[in-house]
């Protein structure tokens, strides 16, 4: 008995020591630029590489080195992970994982394929995507569509443990990439269109046991908020249980705030950061307390959370879009960077929200420093009040003010947001952010809807079309100054830019297009340096690594996701072309959106079928040695 307790004490001491540092294997792997060790490149989410073998001078010579078909034909989000001589790639449902041998390019070391109930497919609102695996401590962590979190042996692909994070018969699913910090692996939950109540959950990396779960809505105890300590706009929240009182009745129980985006981590401050999604139904009237917007923040949907990874306690919160009326689902990545602001180095967090505003916050305190539109055509709010942190909503574009069964027209951006999940990049060399964006507006008609567990809980129709009176395309790739809150340069694109960006020390930034092009641009001015058409549209993230001392660039192609879901089967070329023409017709002025909106909806992404089809391919590029 004594021996046992001594042994227990010893293991507790070891555990405590283990949790005193960030995950050593990840930090070590991230510090070596020859790897691409995590989905966002590093804990800060910068998607930047200090490699410079491929640079502005020689990128024009870049060619395909090798490629690999995943065998799955759906939207491929996320990207490859490289640790040492092994590359790990994943697929959409049924969420296969391949470990590929870089010494023998494309040779499969092991393959994992789960057996999942296919009835999970129709509850995935926006394609059966998955944003990739995490690799740490000799394990590969995969969050499967059917809510299973699985830890695989990185050497063999064998299952070590499994945990059940949700129930697809209630509309819950998993799409986000897990994040590993210390001895915990974090997963969110998807299902914002099914009335799912969001949460972030920590599991023990060694056993798969749940350590803590923090909900996005409900009583403070569930949300892990202490209103006397957790701050909002620099002050303690004060009021209790706002996650209940800012909702009518028990609507918070189907209040959304799902957590399907990216998670970042600051090891010095010991804080993890993530955003919560849209509040339940898209019909704001059903989420209003006493029909009064000012009482109806629907907390803590649309909120950036900074939490202690050990306990889950919320250190600070910031709600970007209180009382959402447009599906500006606030889950986008929070990039951590140190930037110069008015002559001072500041530790900031930068978030390019779906609502079209880019927020720069002090990441230690949550103080709001900058909130500016990163697409000048954003019109639903004039600006953000820097004292309260609240957007000043324009009544004309308020789907709540206009009411149920009324079609609110020409709202910019569309529900897809000025930017969706496609992660941006930050270069410490230039101090600028490189951001893939959407340039789409919408008509939005909310109406009354009933909740049934496991069925869609939307209550709105949305028609989307390219931003009127602009360049006619549906996307931009921009460089952003987060200190000044200004666009530095902007490159128009025909379709939404739905792929994750990469910036490099070589002065080249990369992004993919829905048509399937991998594009390399000069980070200085956005000028195109090179492009290549991969087999299918790109919604994956561009990564880079070295092998045997040589730099490679890798990306998954496979059109899909929300942007690609409109890809029509059976729509004739003629119909698509006509729709496109109508949607981008120069005479299509703001306010007349209603006349052509329907055609716009057809046009929005359906004409994509003229450029690409479904696929699932990894393409790896290099610059061949001079002969």
């Amino acid at each position: 008995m004594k021996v046992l307790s001594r042994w227990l004490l010893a293991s507790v001491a070891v555990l405590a020591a283990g949790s005193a540092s960030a995950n050593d294997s990840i930090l070590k792997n991230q510090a070596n630029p020859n790897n691409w060790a995590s989905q966002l490149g590093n804990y800060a989410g910068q998607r930047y590489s200090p490699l410079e073998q491929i640079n502005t001078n020689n990128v024009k010579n870049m060619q395909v080195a090798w490629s690999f078909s995943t065998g799955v034909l759906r939207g491929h989000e996320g990207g490859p992970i490289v640790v040492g001589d092994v590359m790990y790639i994943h697929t959409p449902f049924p969420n296969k994982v391949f470990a590929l041998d870089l010494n023998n390019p494309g040779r499969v070391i092991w393959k994992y394929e789960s057996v999942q109930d296919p009835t999970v497919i129709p509850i995935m609102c926006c394609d059966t995507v998955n944003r990739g695996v995490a690799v740490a401590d000799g394990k590969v962590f995969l969050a499967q569509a059917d809510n299973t979190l699985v830890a695989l042996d990185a050497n063999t692909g064998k299952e070590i443990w499994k945990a059940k994070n949700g129930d697809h018969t209630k509309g819950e699913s998993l799409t986000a990439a897990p994040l590993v910090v210390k001895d915990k692996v974090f997963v969110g939950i998807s299902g914002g269109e099914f009335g799912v109540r969001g949460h972030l959950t920590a599991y023990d990396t060694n056993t798969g046991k749940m350590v803590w779960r923090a909900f996005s809505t409900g009583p403070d105890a569930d949300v892990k908020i202490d209103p006397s300590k957790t701050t909002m706009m620099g002050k303690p929240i004060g009021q209790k249980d706002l996650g209940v009182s800012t909702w009518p009745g028990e609507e918070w129980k189907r209040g959304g705030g799902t957590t399907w985006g990216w998670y970042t981590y600051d090891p010095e401050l010991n804080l993890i950061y993530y955003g919560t999604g849209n509040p339940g139904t898209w019909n704001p009237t059903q989420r209003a307390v006493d029909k009064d917007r000012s009482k109806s923040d629907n907390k803590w949907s649309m909120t950036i959370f900074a939490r202690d990874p050990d306990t889950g306690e919320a250190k600070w919160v910031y709600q970007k879009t209180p009382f959402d009326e447009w599906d500006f689902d606030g889950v986008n990545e929070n990039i951590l960077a140190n930037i110069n602001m008015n002559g001072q180095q500041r530790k900031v967090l930068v978030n390019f929200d779906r609502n079209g505003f880019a927020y720069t916050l002090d990441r230690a305190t949550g103080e709001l420093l900058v909130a500016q539109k990163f697409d000048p055509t954003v019109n639903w709010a004039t600006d953000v009040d820097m004292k309260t942190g609240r957007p000043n909503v324009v009544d004309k574009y308020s789907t709540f003010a206009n009411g149920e069964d009324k079609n609110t027209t020409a709202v910019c951006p569309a529900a897809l947001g000025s930017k969706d999940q496609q992660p941006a990049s930050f270069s410490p060399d230039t101090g600028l952010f490189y951001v893939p964006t959407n340039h789409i507006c919408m008509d939005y008609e909310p109406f009354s809807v009933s909740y049934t567990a496991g069925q869609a809980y939307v209550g709105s129709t949305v028609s989307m079309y390219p931003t009127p009176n602009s360049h006619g395309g549906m996307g931009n790739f921009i460089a952003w100054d987060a200190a000044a809150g200004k666009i530095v340069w902007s490159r128009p694109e025909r379709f939404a830019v739905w792929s994750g960006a990469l910036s490099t020390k070589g002065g080249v930034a990369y992004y993919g297009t829905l048509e399937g092009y991998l594009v390399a641009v000069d980070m200085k001015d956005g000028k195109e340096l090179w492009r290549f058409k991969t087999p299918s549209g790109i919604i994956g993230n561009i990564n880079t690594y070295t092998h045997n001392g040589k730099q490679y660039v890798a990306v998954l192609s496979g059109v899909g996701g929300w942007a690609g879901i409109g890809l029509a089967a059976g729509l004739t070329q003629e119909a698509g072309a006509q729709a496109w023409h109508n949607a981008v017709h120069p005479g299509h002025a703001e306010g007349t959106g209603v006349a052509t909106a329907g055609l716009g909806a057809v046009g929005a992404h359906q004409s994509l079928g003229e450029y690409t089809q479904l696929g699932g391919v990894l393409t790896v590029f290099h610059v061949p040695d001079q002969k």
Partner: protein
Amino acid sequence: MLMKRRFGILTGILAAGIGALACATAFAEDDAPVTPDGTPAYIVKDGQVDKGTYNGYRRFHATCHVCHGFDASGSSFAPSLADSLKRLSYDDFKEVVVNGRQNQGATGDKVMPSFGLDPNIMNNLDDIYRYLKARADGALPGGRPQRIGG
């Protein structure tokens, strides 16, 4: 057991539907038109549609379109209903919506869920049919239709 319940609900809705038809004939033909044999029908006049067809447009584009595509023109997930409704009868249509269908494609990803317990669908089934039938017959172009009488 589950199947029984679903059919129970279907029967209930059919009964309610017959009630609604009687009302429609008596009071508001333009709101919920039907053919002489009782099948839901639509009115398209000068590019405007009856209220039922408009409601069908809305309900379709709140739930069904994520797989069946905008304007019911299909997507890589599920077939174009503007095409399928050329062949499916009203009864076939109801059967598939209520019970779902598991018809796995080459990549194992074609599944039609059951909507038998979803009031947003079941309470609007006739209107969704009206909209889809108008699309299938080529009577209604893509996009948001206008309601007769606004």
